[in-house]
């Protein structure tokens, strides 16, 4: 059986989040020292070489992103940690922040040094109020110990808007505005917070940084799937025996994740579907269970890795009912800025409800299919582009469930 491998959760249970000394005792902040001893270009080259790719769902090469911000000329640059973990079923970033906030802070400080930023923000979702004091205490201790030098770090709370997980919406929110995405280009590494070059990375991404610097890019690049190396934290929910989290190398399969780590389906029932990546993720049928969880292998199979949230459904689950609820989620969370998302999420929810109530027909799934396809490439931001995934993939893989509901 495949085994867990803890990189971002390396200190889980080993450090006291409110005592920085315990982090230092585990070798904490040595990577920041090492980074600061390196030439910035070499540092970014090292991160790039590790092939660490964004853990928030977009999968962009982290070191490459940093070089864009490093290359931009500006009197001020910003480093932001995206802790707006809003994908239902996802709580990996909370685990990191709750148990090992210094890993995040160290990763951010490395980034700040690399790109030349002196100010950082942790944008924490409003639903994690109890983490504010943990993070503030951790920042204060890191400052007191002199680790942060001129890097100033502040926690900002979100207030209940899933769309703020989109980096430009998050930036707008830090600026005190409605969390509505901006059109891109320009991208944040060039024009970001308050118009300045800004790096926004996921918590899990930052938490990888100290380990990569400690053990080297080659070490990291050699773990898991070569194109998307390293580990990924998965949080398992739904009808799975082990409703918990696992950090695993990226070359395990969905089947291993659910059946080996997850312990299979509760009550000895049969597997029906899994949705990976959060509520915007694709629904995975039995036939695709042997897909490797890495970013590109999932993509090639028409699936997505997303945040790694894994929602498992047994044979008794009503797929159409679940997708109807998910459609309601997107109707509620669309920011409303762009027409296809604002109107499209509402229409998707409307038609899904109609089908779920037994009033639909094959014309409705055809319309959902067309609408979802158009949304997937016309919407302004990732929310609207990904929102149709559950609908599109269930129409594709679970057509019989829809047909069973038709009038």
């Amino acid at each position: 059986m495949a085994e867990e491998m803890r990189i971002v959760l390396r200190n889980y249970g080993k450090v006291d989040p409110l005592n920085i000394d315990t982090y230092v005792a585990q070798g904490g902040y040595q990577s920041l020292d090492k980074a600061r001893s390196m030439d910035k270009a070499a540092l970014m080259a090292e991160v790039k070489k590790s092939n660490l790719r964004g853990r928030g769902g977009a999968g962009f090469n982290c070191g490459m992103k940093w070089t864009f911000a490093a290359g931009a000329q500006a009197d001020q640059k910003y480093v932001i940690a995206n802790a707006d973990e809003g994908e239902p079923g996802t709580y990996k970033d909370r685990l990191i922040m709750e148990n090992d906030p210094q890993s995040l802070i160290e990763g951010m400080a490395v980034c700040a040094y690399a790109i030349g930023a002196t100010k950082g923000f942790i944008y924490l979702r409003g639903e994690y109020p109890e983490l504010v004091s943990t993070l503030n205490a951790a920042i204060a201790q890191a400052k007191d110990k002199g680790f942060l030098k001129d890097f100033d770090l502040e926690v900002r709370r979100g207030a209940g808007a899933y769309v703020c997980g989109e980096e430009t919406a998050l930036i707008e929110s830090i600026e005190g505005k409605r969390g509505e995405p901006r059109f891109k280009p320009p991208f944040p590494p060039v024009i970001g917070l308050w118009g300045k070059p800004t790096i926004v990375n996921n918590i899990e991404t930052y938490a990888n940084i100290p380990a990569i610097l400690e053990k080297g890019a080659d070490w990291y690049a050699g773990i898991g799937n070569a194109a998307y190396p390293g580990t990924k934290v998965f949080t398992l929910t739904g009808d799975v025996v082990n409703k918990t989290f696992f950090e695993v190398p990226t070359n395990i399969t969905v089947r291993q994740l659910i059946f080996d780590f997850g312990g299979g389906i509760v009550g000895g029932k049969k597997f029906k579907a899994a949705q990976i990546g959060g509520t915007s993720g694709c629904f995975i049928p039995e036939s695709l269970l042997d897909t490797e969880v890495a970013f590109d292998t999932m993509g090639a199979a028409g699936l997505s890795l997303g945040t790694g949230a894994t929602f498992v459904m047994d044979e008794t689950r009503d797929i159409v009912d679940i997708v109807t609820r998910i459609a309601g989620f997107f109707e509620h969370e669309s920011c409303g800025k762009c027409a296809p998302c604002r109107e499209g999420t509402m229409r998707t929810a409307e038609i899904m409800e109609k089908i779920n109530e037994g009033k639909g027909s094959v014309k409705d799934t055809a319309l959902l299919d067309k609408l979802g396809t158009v949304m997937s490439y016309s919407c302004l931001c990732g929310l609207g582009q990904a929102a149709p995934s559950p609908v599109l993939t269930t129409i594709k893989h679970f057509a019989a469930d829809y047909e069973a509901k038709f009038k």
Partner: protein
Amino acid sequence: MINVTIDGIKASVPEGSTILQAASEVGVRIPTLCYHPDQSIKANCRVCVCEVEGNRLLVAACAMPVFEGMVVKTRTPKVIEARKTIIELILANHPQDCLNCIRNGNCELQELAEEYCVRENPFEYKVRGFEKDFSTPSLFRDQDKCILCRRCIEACSVIQSVNALGLQERGYHSMVVPTMGKTLAESPCVMCGQCIHACPVGAIGEVEGINDFLAAVADPEMIVVTQIAPAVRVAIAEEIGMTTGSMGMDTFVTGLRQVGFDYVLHTNFTADLTILEEGNELLKRVKEGGTLPMFTSCSPGWINFCETFYPDLLDNLSTCKSPQQMFGSLVKTYWAEKMGVDPSKIYSVSIMPCVAKKFEAARPEMNASGYQDVDLVLTTREIGRLFRMSGLDFSKLPGSNFDSWMGAYTGAAVIFGATGGVMEAALRTVYEVVTGNVLEDVNFNVARGFEGIKEAEVDLNGLVVKVAIAHSLSNARKLMDQVRAGTSPYHFIEVMACPGGCIGGGGQPITKRNAKRIERIDALYAEDAGLPVRKSHENKEVAKLYEDFLHEPLGHKSHELLHTHYHDKHKTVL
């Protein structure tokens, strides 16, 4: 230059161009809806999406800059399906009452629906069913028709700095609403109507007075008298499919008689009168140490703005009523006397480029004649509708003249319609009054042009007068903040609420482009240049008015009929 290929056509365009701009260079028109040529890029309607080779996602042509070697396809099946679906989505909750809509035939969404052959919409027709906001006498809002392009918000905030409009809620529930979700009347709205120009559909419009007009015409007892504001003639041609400025004043007058006006007079007459009153008021303030700088007071949107945002500066406003209201009080006193008619039988209609004029006419204090001074305000657009209703062919219509006593005007009055025009007209008169010399060249070019704020110094035989001119309220705000801070160097400030002045007023033919506004301004200056008399104090009918009725500028009768006072309308929701 950047080399791109658009639908197989090679183009070389400046760096920083968008796909939309590049496409138009090679004759490819990409449909748009939220795009506005004089506003920031919004990219929220997604109607302009195109394919770019190598991209899975479609890109918004309005926002996407070109790059070297970019290959764009603007009309693939994928693109057409996306656009059509988006148009269908927008239409599915948009009221399908185009026939009754104030923007019927002049609606960007209607055009798109036509272009994309939307017949049977696959999405269920679902109008949200909001109540219309008719809380102001100038503007109404029809929330159901709003397509959330946000152009009105930008017009109100960026151009006007009024911020009466904003967003509420999010997603499908998001709406454009007046401040704090209240009515327009409760918001800081100054009723300039720039949001009407910004709106691509019929979500905001003028409160129409056409039925009131038709009722007055139908009443045999009523003498229906009209005044035409200076900015109307140059734009009215646009309403009936003619080029800007191409309708002659004489055929315009005939057209007005044809639609039912008994007497056609001119606001230009009271524009000249305004110069005499306001010019003398300025000189009095300068000589006697009155409150300076003095602000012009002809633009009712500006008056509302000053009352709402700068109530501490109300003493700086000229006490002169606007030309519309001077006309209103005179037509039911002086003119009625001259004509020997019963003022209670006069139905006084003004034709204005403005929607705030509707509010101004309805102000309770505007009854110096003993009656409501102006009974009805019709905008240029409404007169255009009356003309279309009447079936007039202006190319064949004979010309006719204005009626007597309040119909004569000078070139100085004509240019009131352009930003800087009031200032220039005032300078033409003040110069001669103060210096006693004849002004050889009446053209004050420093007062002309589309710059947001213009300033000038005029030497009147040693008396140096410093003046400033602002159009659009965000520019006015800059000058007001100076005044408030005590750092304003000016004696006299002209403010017009709308971009370009009255020619860009909220009641003018719908236009998105400042280029069109500039065209109208050019037409006004051309009219001025062609007139024999170009100084207000040389208007013979105005001279007659003083001789027979008012006796002197700022005199007792003037004070009673031509001057007004202002109110502190500061709102807590600002």
